[in-house]
């Protein structure tokens, strides 16, 4: 039995979309009521930079993944350390 990692990428995309909506609402409030003063610009920029860093790091870690290639599920079940425990019993 195998599964495409693309499914998990889709779940990530949905969560990321909700993140974008909520972040946009916060930006709206800052621009509308915070009047784009220095503190609001600086904090918003820090937030943006951190967001980009996290997204880039995430996909940097997953650079070797071939998203449309199915991965067998038994790779979770047959992990070496779980196998060791089973052998012990």
């Amino acid at each position: 039995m195998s599964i495409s990692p693309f499914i998990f990428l889709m779940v990530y995309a949905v969560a990321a979309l909700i993140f974008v909506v909520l972040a946009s609402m916060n930006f709206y409030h800052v621009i509308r009521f915070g009047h784009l003063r220095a503190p609001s610009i600086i904090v918003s920029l820090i937030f943006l930079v951190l967001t980009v860093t996290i997204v880039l790091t995430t996909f940097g870690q997953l650079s070797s993944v071939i998203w449309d290639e199915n991965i067998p599920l038994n790779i979770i079940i047959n992990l070496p350390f779980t196998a060791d425990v089973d052998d012990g019993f």
Partner: protein
Amino acid sequence: MSMTDFKNFYFPGKPVNEDVVMVLRRHKMALANKLFIFVLGGLAPIVVYTLVVTYTVLLDDDTSLIFIIIVLLAGIYYLYIILFMYHAWVDYYLDIWIITEERIIATEQKGLFNREVSELRLSRIQDVSCVVKGFFPTIFKYGSIHVQTASESDRFNFGEVPNAVEVSRKILALHEKLVNKNMGSTKQHTRTE
């Protein structure tokens, strides 16, 4: 709170002849407390990751399904951690009390879709009280201010105000000054009649 000169402070609907006396935000410690919880939440997965990498071979293969799931989950987790931190800051930054010579304008951001702006005439104040309660509020001198008005049953509250005692005294002083000014102008008006 900083007792600097706010005479040039502008807010929407400010009349030209109305001077701003104080602009209050919550104490920075109140924000720091919230952010600290998120920082702890951010550190927890790093500790778990270190333990997993050290003691298991779960994440050795960077093309395995478990690796993909964990990296994607961690990515989302950290995105939401910084989103909540940013929201805590927005909440802190947009909650503001503007005290002028005639009124108090309180603006509070409650969540993403709820913003309350209320206004109170200083002449209608009946009672001002402040509460400094807890370890951090006592150490860093911040607390809640409650303003009771003559006509409204519910109180006007503002939490985690720096120098709460000093601010409540200042509000009462402004109230008395305004009442005396109004009484003076009424007497003068009666004499001219």
